[in-house]
């Protein structure tokens, strides 16, 4: 059997590794649009910041592919699929036949339609090649457009490199998808304390400069700068899937076996649209742990295991120098449109802050800064199990000693939310 994997990222390589571990004979071919072996995009900002060397970003060397007997084709962007002939065609016109095809080519950075966004001095933070350019660039004043996780990490890295950093966010507060306003405001205060200039609720109108960037114009001000980093989100790549008439929504649609609508074609990673493990709604969490789990499901199904994907979940952490924050599940804002009794548990002591979102007594999401974040895992567990926190609040202090010893994470959960009981 010949398995062709489109994409040399986390998901693609995970599929290859799982297949190779269980099947020594199978022919595995990876098509990579880039020229480098597998690296971890999550660690790129830390490479930029100088926390780690370039070699630590890479997870494999070219020799590793040989050792694993995986055929990898660099600079080979797949452009079309012919499901009848079972073949993929690359940009250079090379046609590769397959028995099973895995789409794991991820997403592309979204460049908003702003005048001057293709100027020299405008960088992105998603790919190794882009990051190398930014690393080699010498500037002193940077504007980061967008304050998602990538934007915040890039801002920290640039600050560490000695830049003066401005962040522009279109919506009302930073990290609008991951955090609710109160949590984000606390983070904003902390970041301003570290010397970052934040401009929320501002729209970038134009990036000025002919040869090199000279300034960024927003609807409220003009910021002089010599570096611009675009971090406005990642859009899933669906163009390739469309050439094979695979059903797509925002991303490639897959069923619980991670199969697309066309036989023998699977998809996983940043390019798929999947469902939330707890609320079952259609979501796109382009996060590393989901990519890994989806890849394991794909590999299992190719090998005939008939395993089912249990759903994606949101979990992210943000840190800025010594301020650590964590979030999982849905935010209060995203919960507002759901039916049911939603409730908010909030606790604050000094700079530590905890916010747990409940719907009908069940944990739906949470955010925390500082000390409270250390107990995040207990809440994630409660979300997975759909623990009834109303019952827990009433009972946790009455659970006897032996019970407490057996189910201590539950008591810890009770302790944490106990004081906030109505």
């Amino acid at each position, binding site marked *: 059997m010949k398995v062709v994997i489109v994409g040399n990222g986390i998901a693609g390589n995970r599929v290859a590794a799982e297949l190779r571990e269980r099947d020594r004979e199978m022919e595995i071919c990876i098509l990579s649009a880039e020229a480098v072996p597998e690296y*971890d995009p*999550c*660690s790129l900002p*830390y490479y930029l910041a100088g*926390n*780690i060397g370039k070699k*630590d970003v890479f*997870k494999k060397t070219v020799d590793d592919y040989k050792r694993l007997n995986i055929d990898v084709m660099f600079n080979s962007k797949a452009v079309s699929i012919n499901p009848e002939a079972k073949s993929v065609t690359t940009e250079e016109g090379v046609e590769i036949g397959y028995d099973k095809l895995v789409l794991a080519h991820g997403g592309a950075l979204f460049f908003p339609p702003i005048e001057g966004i293709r100027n020299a001095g405008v960088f992105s933070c998603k790919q190794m090649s882009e990051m190398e350019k930014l690393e080699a660039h010498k500037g002193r004043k940077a504007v980061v457009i967008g304050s998602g996780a990538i934007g915040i990490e890039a801002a920290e890295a640039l600050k560490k490199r000695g830049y003066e950093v401005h962040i522009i966010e279109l919506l009302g507060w930073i990290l609008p998808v991951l955090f609710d306003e109160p949590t984000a405001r606390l983070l904003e205060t902390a970041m301003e304390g570290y010397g970052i200039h934040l401009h929320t609720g501002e729209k970038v109108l134009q990036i000025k400069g002919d040869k090199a960037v000279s300034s960024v114009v927003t609807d409220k001000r003009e910021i002089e700068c010599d570096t611009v980093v675009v971090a406005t989100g990642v859009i899933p790549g669906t163009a390739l899937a469309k050439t094979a008439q695979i059903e797509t929504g925002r991303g490639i649609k897959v069923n619980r076996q991670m199969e697309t609508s066309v036989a023998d074609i699977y998809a996983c990673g940043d390019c798929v649209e999947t469902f939330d*493990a*707890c609320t079952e709604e259609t979501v796109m969490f382009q996060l*590393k*742990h989901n990519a*890994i*789990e989806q890849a394991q499901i794909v590999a299992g199904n190719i090998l005939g295991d008939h*395993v089912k994907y*249990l*759903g994606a979940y949101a*979990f992210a*952490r943000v*840190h800025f120098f010594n301020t*650590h924050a*964590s979030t999982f599940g849905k935010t209060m804002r995203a919960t507002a449109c759901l039916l049911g009794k939603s409730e908010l548990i909030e606790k604050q002591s000094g700079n530590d802050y905890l916010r747990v979102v409940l719907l009908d007594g*069940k944990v739906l999401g949470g955010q925390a800064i500082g000390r409270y*974040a*250390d*107990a*995040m*895992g*207990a809440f*994630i*567990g409660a979300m*997975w*199990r*759909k*623990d*009834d*926190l109303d*019952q*827990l609040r009433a*009972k946790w*202090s009455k*659970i*006897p*000693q*032996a*019970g*407490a*010893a*057996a*189910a*201590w*994470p*539950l*008591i*810890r959960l009770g*302790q944490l939310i106990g004081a906030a009981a109505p």
Partner: protein
Amino acid sequence: MEIRREQLAVDPLKCNGCQQCLMACSMKHQGNVNPGLALLKILRLEVQKVDVPVICMACDNAPCIKVCPMNARVRQENGTVITNTDVCIGCRACVYICPVGSPLVNPYTGQTMTCDMCQDDETGPWCVTACREGALKISKDDALTKGVLRERAERSRAIYPNNFRTNQP
């Protein structure tokens, strides 16, 4: 699921919070008696008067390995999962995702650290040797069969509020 050969087992009912294990652990791993540097911690449940030694359970399907942006969480040959301090950048993702909150942050380096069951020491984990109450033990063979694990899980499951359902693969 393959059951590991050896597993560190914790019995909170026997623990009296004396912290001998923390001392032994910091001595073994950091060469210095300092409970703040140990790779485990003791959680006190005041209402029930229970002390729980919190230690990395080395989950088979460990979420910390998946969320680490640096791939610094690595599975050792003896089954334990430790942080590779050469690449850990101290983002604490492993602390936040851990169901028991076991990774601890080294106060000097900011990197996380978890139990490796003293894998380079033939005499076994130092905390087990140090524990006089028998709260920390090495479980193996008969004490680590599927039946025993299931029975333990049932014990804690009985305490959880209703609608309990496992969702994880």
